C-alpha cells in the first residue's frame, strides 16, 4: 500500500496490491492512466517522490529479502544492480549535460568493481548489444543528439549494464513509433533470453501485453482487479473492467466506422475513491458494493479476480 501526502490529506494511490514475478518470466501490468501502475513499480525500488510518497504497509520480497527492511546501502546495491529500471521518457531520465558514455560508466563503476577504463569498454559493448550503430563514436554523444528510439536503447543498455535479475520497464515504448516499438520489444526479449532475467512490463497497450507477456495483472483505481495467464485473460476475462478494456480496442479486422464499445465515465479522483468496488463507482452504481471491498479470489486455477457481485458474474 502506497500513499501520498497531498493538500487534501493522505491519498492511497496503491491499495493492497499483491503479485509475484517468477524468475525469467514476463509479467504485464495493465490499466488506464492514473490507476497506479507506475506507483506500484516505483514502490518496488523505492523511487517514490519524497517526502510526499511513502509505503504505508506491505512487503516487497526480492529473492526472499524484504526490500523495505534492508538498509539504504543494500537498497542502493539492488537498485540498478539486481533490479534494472527503464522509464517511459528517456529524455527526462538521462542527464542532458553528460555524454551517454559517462552516464553508462557511472552506473557500471557504481555496481561492479571495475575501473573507469574497463567500464568504458563495457559501455561500448553494451551499446553495440542494444543495436546502436558505431557505438565507439556514440559514447561521446549527448542525449539530445540521439533519436527517441536510440535514447530508449541507451536506457536499456544502462538498465542491463549490471545484468539484473529483474527488469522493470515502465511504458518503455509508449512514446515511440510502432516500428521502433517492435525493435525495442524484440531487444528486451532477446536480452531476457541471454540473461534469464524476469521482466515487469507496464503498459496500457493490450497488443503489447498479448505479444510479450506470460501473465497479466490488471489494475484499476489503485487495486488489482484481475490476474491470470495471458491466454486465459484474453480468452476468458471475468471482471467487467477487463472485459470493457478488451472490447474497446479498435482492431484491424473490425468493420470500419461501426460503433466501438466504450467504458462509460472515468476513473474517480484518488481522494474520492470509495472503500468498496471502484468500478461500480465509475458505473455510477449505488448500494452495498460501494461500501465493502470485494474479495480478491482464485476462482479457477491461477485465475484471480475481484469478486464484486455487480462486476463479476461468477
Amino acid at each position, binding site marked *: 500500500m502506497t500513499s501520498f501526502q497531498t493538500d487534501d490529506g493522505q491519498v492511497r494511490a496503491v491499495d493492497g496490491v499483491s503479485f509475484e514475478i517468477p524468475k525469467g518470466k514476463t509479467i504485464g501490468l495493465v490499466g*488506464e*492512466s492514473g490507476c497506479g501502475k507506475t506507483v506500484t513499480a516505483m514502490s518496488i525500488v523505492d523511487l517514490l517522490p519524497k517526502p510526499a510518497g511513502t509505503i504505508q504497509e506491505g512487503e516487497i520480497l526480492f529473492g526472499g529479502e524484504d526490500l523495505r527492511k534492508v538498509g539504504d546501502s543494500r537498497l542502493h546495491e539492488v537498485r540498478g544492480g539486481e533490479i534494472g529500471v527503464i522509464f517511459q521518457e528517456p529524455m527526462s531520465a538521462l542527464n542532458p549535460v553528460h555524454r551517454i558514455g559517462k552516464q553508462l560508466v557511472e552506473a557500471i563503476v557504481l555496481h561492479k568493481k571495475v575501473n573507469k577504463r574497463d567500464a568504458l569498454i563495457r559501455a561500448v559493448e553494451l551499446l553495440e548489444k542494444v543495436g546502436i550503430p558505431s557505438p565507439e563514436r556514440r559514447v561521446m554523444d549527448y542525449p539530445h543528439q540521439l*533519436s*527517441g*528510439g*536510440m535514447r530508449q536503447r541507451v536506457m536499456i543498455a544502462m538498465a542491463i549494464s549490471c545484468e539484473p535479475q529483474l527488469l522493470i520497464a515502465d511504458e518503455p515504448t509508449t512514446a515511440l*513509433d*510502432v*516500428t*521502433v*516499438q*517492435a*525493435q525495442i*520489444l*524484440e531487444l528486451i526479449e532477446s536480452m531476457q533470453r541471454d540473461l534469464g532475467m524476469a521482466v515487469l512490463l507496464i503498459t*496500457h*497497450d*493490450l*497488443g*503489447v*501485453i*498479448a*505479444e510479450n507477456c506470460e501473465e497479466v495483472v490488471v489494475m484499476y483505481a489503485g487495486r488489482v482487479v484481475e490476474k491470470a495467464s*495471458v*491466454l486465459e485473460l*484474453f*480468452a476468458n476475462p471475468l471482471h467487467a473492467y477487463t472485459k*470493457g*478494456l*478488451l472490447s*474497446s*480496442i*479498435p*482492431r*484491424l479486422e*473490425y468493420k*470500419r*466506422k461501426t*460503433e*466501438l*464499445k*466504450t*467504458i462509460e465515465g*472515468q476513473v474517480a479522483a484518488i481522494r474520492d475513491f470509495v472503500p468498496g468496488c471502484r468500478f461500480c463507482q465509475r458505473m455510477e452504481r449505488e448500494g452495498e458494493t460501494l461500501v465493502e471491498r470485494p474479495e480478491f479470489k482464485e476462482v479457477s486455477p491461477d485465475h484471480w479476480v475481484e469478486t464484486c457481485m455487480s462486476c463479476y458474474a461468477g
Partner: protein
Amino acid sequence: MAQNEQEEPLLEVHDLQMYFPVRGGVMFKKIGDVKAVDGVSLSIGRGESLGLVGESGCGKSTVGKCLVRLLKPTDGKVIFKEMDITEMSQRRLRPLRQDIQMVFQDPVESLDARLSVGELIAEPLQIHRVGSRSSRRERVYELLDQVRMPRSAVEKFPFEFSGGQRQRIGIARSLALNPELLILDEPVSALDVSVQSQVLNLLVELQRELGLSYLFIAHDLAVVKHISDRVAVMYLGKLVEVAGADEIYHNPRHAYTKALLSAVPIPDPTVKRERKALVGDVPSPIDPPAGSAFGHRISHPKYEESIGMDLGLVEIERDHWVARDPCCLTSEDWGRVRML
C-alpha cells in the same frame, strides 16, 4: 461515403512542398533545407475521411498545417472549394478559415487556461463576429450537446476535465463555425483505450450528422483504419501508397506499408506472427537519400538502380496508388508498374 466521381473534391493538393531552411555557421547563412514535405498530392471528397499515417518526423503534421495555412507552403497548390488558397492573402483567407478547422492532440494545452469552457468555445464566433452575445451563448449550448457534454461545463475551466472531455471541448470549439473540413492531428493518441473509443465514436457520428470531411493524421494504424475511407501512407516527406482503407490493409503493395502493418501489436495472444522488425530510423530529411528513401533504409540491392528514377505514385489497380519504386514492390508488381 466514397468520393463522388462527378463532383469536384472539396480539397485538392498538388505537389505540395514545405522546406524549412537550415542555418548555420558564423554568418547564420542558409546551409540547406529540411524537406519536411516534398511533393505530396492528395484530394479529399465531401463527407470523406482520408487517413494520413507514417512515423514521427515523416511530415504528416506539416501537411496538416499547410492545409490550414498555419504554414505557407514553399511550392505546390492547395485548392479548396475550387479556389487556390496557396497564395491567398490573410485578409481574403479569413472567411475561408471558418470552413477548415484543426483539432490538436491536446487542444486545451494550446489554449488560454484562464478562459472558461464557454468562453473557449465562443472565441471563434467572437473572432469571426458571428451572432449576438445571446445567440452565441445558445450556439455554445448546442455545441456542447453535439459533443455529448453537459451544459454545466460552460462555467468550468479546462483543467477540471479529463483528457477525453478536453478533446470533446476541442472538437466543440472547432465545430463552432460550421466547418466543412476538419484536420485532426493525432486527436486520440494521448487517450486511454476506453476513452479513445468514445471520442472515435463521436467523430464518426458527427461526420454522419454534419456531413464533415476529415483529414485524420495519426500513427495508430488500427485507429486510422477505423475512421478512414481512404488511407495515405507517408514516408520521409512523400506519399508512398494511397488506397481505400480496407484495400490497403488487406492488400498492401509497398514494402513500407507492409512493414508498418506488421509492426502493429495484435491484441490476441493466440496469434503468433512473424514480426518483420524494421531496422534503423527514418533518415534525416535534411539530407535524404538520392534514390528510394525506404530502399536506402532497408539496404535494398536495387537501391543504386532507383537513383534518378521518377518514384512518383502510379495507379497499380483502380483507386490503388503506389510509388513506382523498384526497391519496395514485389517483382510481379514492379513488372506491372514499370511500364505505367
